[in-house]
């Protein structure tokens, strides 16, 4: 797995307060191109907030974020530059726990919406790209179906195709299988594993150990707004060095 050169994501000393609650306490993190990083930790550890700060769905309070050449330094005294935020969002694809497919659009329309509205493509240009990405997640046969007629796993695969269609430099997954019935988790995980094999840079907040063992290059354990330890999946899972990591894994594994 060649991972050299400059990091594609750089987080420097990131802080986030929700009113008086200090949820991120100076997180720094580099992600290399093609790297698959998994973030684990108990609920309230700040792992989702960290992910959501990367594309400014949450506004960081302090610190700097660089994604694929676009840098935004948080400045609490000033309104953030909306143009730069959109630039970062164009370089990241987000997959949500609750899918958030647009219910008034078919699967294909969901996938091409960003191409048409944001990238200003014509429908004729966008449809083939949409079809390719639906095929990537094995959803070609559902292209004209509305989300209400899809299972949870199918919805999440369309949501992944929707993010991929924008050709992001980094994919962000925020607990992508947590809202799924257990028997539907596998189809989403295998799509994600395929993406990892293709060399997509991925940040994944999840507790799917199968995915961690199969596809992750690095696992990060977070607790109370800090990165406690990180390393290769096998090392973290079998030889955690911090007692907090050990305790957490005891309960999850």
């Amino acid at each position, binding site marked *: 797995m060649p991972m050299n050169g400059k990091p594609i994501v750089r987080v420097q000393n990131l802080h986030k307060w929700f009113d008086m609650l200090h949820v991120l306490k100076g997180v720094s993190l580099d992600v290399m191109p093609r790297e698959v990083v998994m973030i684990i930790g108990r609920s309230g550890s700040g792992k989702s907030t960290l992910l959501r700060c990367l594309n400014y769905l949450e506004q960081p309070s302090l610190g700097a974020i660089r994604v694929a050449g676009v840098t935004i330094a948080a400045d609490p005294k000033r309104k953030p530059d909306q143009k730069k935020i959109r630039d970062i969002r164009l370089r990241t694809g987000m997959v*949500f726990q609750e899918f958030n497919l647009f219910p008034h659009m078919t699967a294909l329309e969901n996938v091409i919406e960003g191409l048409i*509205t944001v990238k200003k493509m014509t429908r004729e240009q966008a449809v083939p790209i949409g079809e390719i990405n639906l095929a990537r997640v094995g959803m070609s046969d559902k292209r004209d179906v509305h989300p209400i007629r899809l299972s949870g796993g199918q919805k999440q695969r369309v949501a992944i195709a929707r993010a991929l269609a924008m050709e992001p430099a980094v994919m962000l997954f925020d607990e992508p299988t947590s809202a799924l019935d257990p028997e539907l988790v596998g189809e989403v995980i295998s799509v994600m594993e395929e993406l990892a094999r293709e060399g997509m840079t991925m940040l994944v907040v999840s507790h799917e150990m199968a995915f961690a063992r199969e596809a992750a290059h690095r696992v990060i354990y977070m607790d109370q707004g800090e990165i406690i330890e990180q390393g290769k999946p096998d090392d973290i899972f079998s030889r955690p060095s911090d007692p907090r990591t050990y305790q957490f894994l005891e309960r999850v594994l």
Partner: protein
Amino acid sequence: MSANTLASPMPGSPDPNAVGRELMSIKRRSETGLRIRVAAVWIGLVVLLIVGLLTIRFSPQYMIEHAGFVLLGAGVTVFVSVVSILIAAVLALLGALGRLSASAIAQGVSSFYISVIRGTPLLIQIYLIYLGLPQIGQQLVNLGIPQGSILILDAVPAGILALSLNYGAYMTEIFRAGIQSISYGQREAALAMGMTRWQMMRRIVLPQAIRVIIPDIGNQFIAMQKDSALVSVMGVWEITFRASRFARKDAKFMEMFLLAALLYWILTIISSRLQDWLEKRMAHAYER
């Protein structure tokens, strides 16, 4: 087959399809039965009304003779209501976006508009626009500003303006609630793919919100058709104005106003049918 065979345990297992069909037909029969009885009650009430009217030397003849004249006003009523509801919807959308905006000016203007309009009677608003505004217009013209004459409105435009402004204020709250009913996840998904706030509104939030508020807009339209009777005070030749002319002339109040009431009633029945049809059409994407 009767309900009896269902209740008594049969030897061996019953055919589940046959039982299902039987249960469904029992349910359907009791539903149609209820519908027929409700219709019978309606007919009874209408008969009662007619009998009551005959005891006061009511003249159906007079009513029929003038039906055509009043019916001509229905066109004006429908025209005024349709144009007004469309303008009101635009005002309501702007008002709702203003209420939800972070800008102090937008919030201030829209909340002021809603407060003033909802705090005053529609009839007064009609008088202010039809009789009050021309005073300002005339004053401007006297001061050498000829554009002031646009404030001097004919009865129909004045009525449309008053109804639009009035319903726009009430519908602002409907639009605001509709917009807010769309989950935050929908907005986040739109923003995460790089949309601007306006693109998010236009492509993701509003199309879903419109569907949610169609029944409320329909109700407002039905209410407006009847509130449009108030523009008769300006002498617009709509249903109420036409009815009241003969009612006063020949002292046939019950005949003429009942005729007007009947016309409004028919109009609202047509409107609610339209509303049902529109709701069904928009539900397509949401049916399993």
